[in-house]
């Protein structure tokens, strides 16, 4: 079942590529396959029962490279299931959004389906080599999305993205080899490594975790490894940005909760002050730089640095040394995973909306617009909802996530409170952007701006509705995440 969710988009991508000149069919297939994926993941969700600490649901394992203790091993728990569903939802939104796209829709659909397969595969992987495989393939896929369908200085941005994240992936690989060699018997299997708990009290563990943290921090990205993100987002196509921000960035933070924290808990404790600092700096720096942007898409890109910073902060706090405050740690951890989902939905929607701006006017510059609410009321309304969701207004998923992150983090490490102004800054920058682009008299490129097309409205609307649903009824999501968070804190906490 789980393998089907991974392989279906891959098979569809191969089929689409093999059928030349089927451009219209490719578009339809893209929407249909991503819709089936959403349905399949909904079935997974409906049938999910918490497997208990260290357990996995929908587990599958096949021999692959037995001599190095690596296998095709997939399974889900409360940390990965929400992200798999999120992946399916984001890709469906992208498929709908791209319904009217005319630029080589066939290879584009194939590439996005390929990316969907790698993303689901990564969140399901229970083997380090399998994880690495999907991690690297996601980089390759996104490189081609940016280089092939981007705009502006896309070749350069794509190259920077590839080189930077590939550097991260090699650091990650070194860390994985370290984990492999540290365990006796040698293995790449994540549950087995968890049982072996090999590098506990081993000074090498700090170095191994260092390599893994650097690898994942590049992907997340956190300060100071974030410099690839703004150009990649600015020059990527709208759906590419949505997938990059909505799904691919989560691979970094998911790696923290799947690999770094549970497999190297005491090294994580040693690193926690660094991680908390990096998280705080990412939150504040990301928000401040975003505030200074005049390019709307770059601004949203920097808010990603800010939002991902909350997650790193929470994970650092949840695994920090100190007196046990288990409940607070669990709250921070649950908040971090919720934030991954929430950020995916909201920022995905915002990037799609920014894409509308570019498709109509050819620019993201906020100065080129003014009074856009008059010619494009639907666009303005959707953007306002997305902005309020992103700044963490109650009633949206962002509030649930960030509230838990701060409640938990401050409860564990009170100093994390210095990241709180990040929320204020985000509010300020979104309100300023809303004011500059949408209010006042209609001028510049706003004149004659065509409002959202049905495809655009449905895709963005779907993401925002989900964010509101999580904001109003968070319990079904939290019920899935919380037991897994508690299990992880049990391994990694204090």
């Amino acid at each position, binding site marked *: 079942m789980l393998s089907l969710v991974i392989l279906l988009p891959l098979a569809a991508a191969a089929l689409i*590529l093999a059928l030349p000149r089927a451009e219209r069919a490719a578009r339809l297939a893209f929407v249909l396959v991503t819709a089936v994926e959403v349905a399949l993941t909904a079935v997974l969700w409906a049938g999910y029962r918490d497997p208990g600490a260290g357990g996995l649901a929908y587990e599958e394992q096949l*021999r*692959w*490279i*037995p*001599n*190095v*203790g*690596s296998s095709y091993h997939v399974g889900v728990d409360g940390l990965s299931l929400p992200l798999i569903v999120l992946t399916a939802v984001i890709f469906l939104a992208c498929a709908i959004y791209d319904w009217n796209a005319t630029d080589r829709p066939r*290879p584009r659909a194939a590439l996005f389906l390929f990316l969907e397969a790698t993303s689901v595969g990564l969140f399901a992987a229970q083997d380090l*080599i399998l994880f*690495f*495989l999907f991690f*690297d*393939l996601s980089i*390759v896929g996104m490189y*081609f999305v940016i*280089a*092939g369908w981007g705009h502006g200085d896309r*070749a350069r941005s794509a*190259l920077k993205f*590839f*080189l930077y994240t*590939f*550097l991260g992936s*090699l*650091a990650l*690989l*070194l860390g994985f*080899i*370290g984990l*492999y*060699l540290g365990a*006796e*018997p*040698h*293995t790449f299997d994540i549950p087995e490594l968890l049982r072996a708990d090999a590098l506990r009290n081993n000074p090498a563990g700090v170095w191994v975790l260092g390599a893994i943290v650097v690898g994942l921090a590049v992907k997340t990205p956190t300060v100071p490894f974030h410099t690839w993100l703004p150009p990649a987002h600015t020059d990527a196509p709208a759906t590419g940005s949505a997938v990059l921000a909505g799904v691919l960035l989560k691979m970094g933070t998911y790696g923290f909760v799947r690999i770094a924290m549970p497999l190297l808990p005491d090294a994580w404790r040693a690193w926690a002050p660094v991680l908390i600092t990096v998280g705080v700096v990412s939150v504040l720096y990301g928000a401040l730089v975003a505030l200074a942007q005049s390019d709307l898409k770059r601004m949203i890109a920097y808010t990603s640095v800010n939002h991902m910073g909350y997650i790193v902060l929470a994970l650092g706090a949840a695994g920090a040394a100190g007196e046990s405050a288990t409940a607070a740690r669990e709250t921070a951890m649950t908040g971090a995973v919720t934030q991954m989902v929430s950020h995916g939905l909201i920022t995905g929607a915002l990037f799609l909306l920014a894409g509308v701006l570019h498709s109509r006017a050819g620019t993201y510059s906020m100065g080129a617009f003014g009074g856009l609410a008059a010619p494009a009321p639907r666009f303005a309304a959707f953007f306002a909802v997305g902005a309020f969701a992103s700044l963490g207004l109650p009633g949206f998923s962002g509030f649930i996530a960030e509230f838990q992150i701060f409640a938990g983090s401050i409860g564990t490490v009170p100093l994390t409170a210095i990241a709180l102004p990040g929320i204020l800054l985000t509010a300020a920058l979104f309100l300023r952007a809303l004011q500059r682009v949408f209010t006042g008299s209609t001028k510049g490129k706003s004149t004659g701006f065509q409002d959202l097309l049905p495809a655009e409205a449905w895709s963005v609307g779907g993401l925002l509705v989900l964010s509101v649903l999580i904001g109003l009824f968070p319990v079904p999501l939290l019920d899935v995440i919380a037991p897994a968070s508690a299990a992880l804190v049990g391994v990694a906490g204090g």
Partner: protein
Amino acid sequence: MESMNSGADALALLPELFLLAGAVLALLAGSFTARERQWISRVIAVVALSASAVASGVAFAAVASAAGPVAESMSVYDGSYILDGGTAAGRLIVAVSALLVIALGVDELRGTARESETYVLILLASLGAVVLAGASDLLVLAVGFLLASIPLYALIGIGGTKAGAEAALKTYLLGALFGILLLLGVTVLYAVSGTTSYAGLRGALAAAAPAVVGVGLVGVLAGLMFKAGAVPGHFWVPDAAEGSGTAVAAFATTVPKIGGFLAAYRLLEMMPGTVRWPLLIALLSVLTMTLGNLAAYTQTNPRRLLGWSTVSQAGYLLMPVAVAGSIPIALPSLVVFLAGYAVTNLAAFAVIAAYPDRTELRAYEGLAAARPWHAVALVVALLSLVGTPPTAVFLGKLTVFTAAWDGGFWWLTLAAAVNTVISLFYYLRWLAPAFRAASPDSPGAGEFTPRRWAGRTAVAGAVLVLVVGVGAGLAWTALGGLPTG
């Protein structure tokens, strides 16, 4: 080490005999047929290589099913030629590589004045590589070296072009020099040990003066580094890659390495601990990968770029050699990397062979639009050279990185990782134009008319790259080195 009777010994050498018989028959056939019927030689060569591949495959499967003690100890002709999983895999890789070389070269070689001779030389040089891979006696090693080298000189110059002649001369001079060093090393090692058999070397050399053993070893290794295309014997590689015909370039950058690395591995495995050879090999490895990468950085000719890239790959291939004999997965990882490297490099050369007139990277602009399958083949081949999963070289890199680190050379693994990042940059310099739209001033103007066989070989090679990458893990059990748990 039980000696079998000579009849059974000969039977065990069936893959080698097929190559030899094929070479003789192809030479005879080529001498007596008109130029337009030289395809007969090609058929003979293909049949001989296929038979050799099948026989090797059977031997490989036999080793696989025997798994364990038999794989360790089987050898023929009084222990001078070892028949373990490494040899079995080496033979198979050589035969399949030579087949791919002929497939990608059909269009280029068909009807040329030296068609038969090219096939004969390919068969002989392949035989030399196989003998190198299986040698477990210094004299057999020397014979293998000559058998692998002399046909290669002729092959590189056979096209008769000016660049080819220069490359052939350079290769010949270097080969002569390193060949002498190898023979000198063999002489020294024999002088201090009184035996040429690897089985006897370890014990005899342990008692000898380390300095003398070191001198002898360095001499032999120098010769083998020439075959492997690694520092300090790498100078001929980029010239041969650029100057010779495409098929020959593909052959010269692939097959000799297979023999060279396996030979180096087997020799070093038998060296006593009195000589600090692991450190020497590790340093050569870092030098080779770094030099190859930095030199490849600025190349604009795809052949020369691949030529330098093969030098850097030789650096990674030295990593398991540096831990030869001390880490269970060292030999399997070397073999897996060799197999992955061979199919990958040949797939990349097949793309070049499909469009032989494109001498700069920019000339590939528009390939993806005009010939999507060839562009996909190029992506698979180049990403494999980078080491992206699930391609063949990734599996090789993963295992050699692990083997080197496990053997204590964590800094070697780190250096290899850094080099991998550097290498991505120049492989992308080739990949990026292929996916750009062609502009009117692109060299070649986006018109892509492939040579048919070469194009098919490129796609088939890319499929093989993925098959090896995904499937080699399961075939691995034949190579021993099972994990301790």
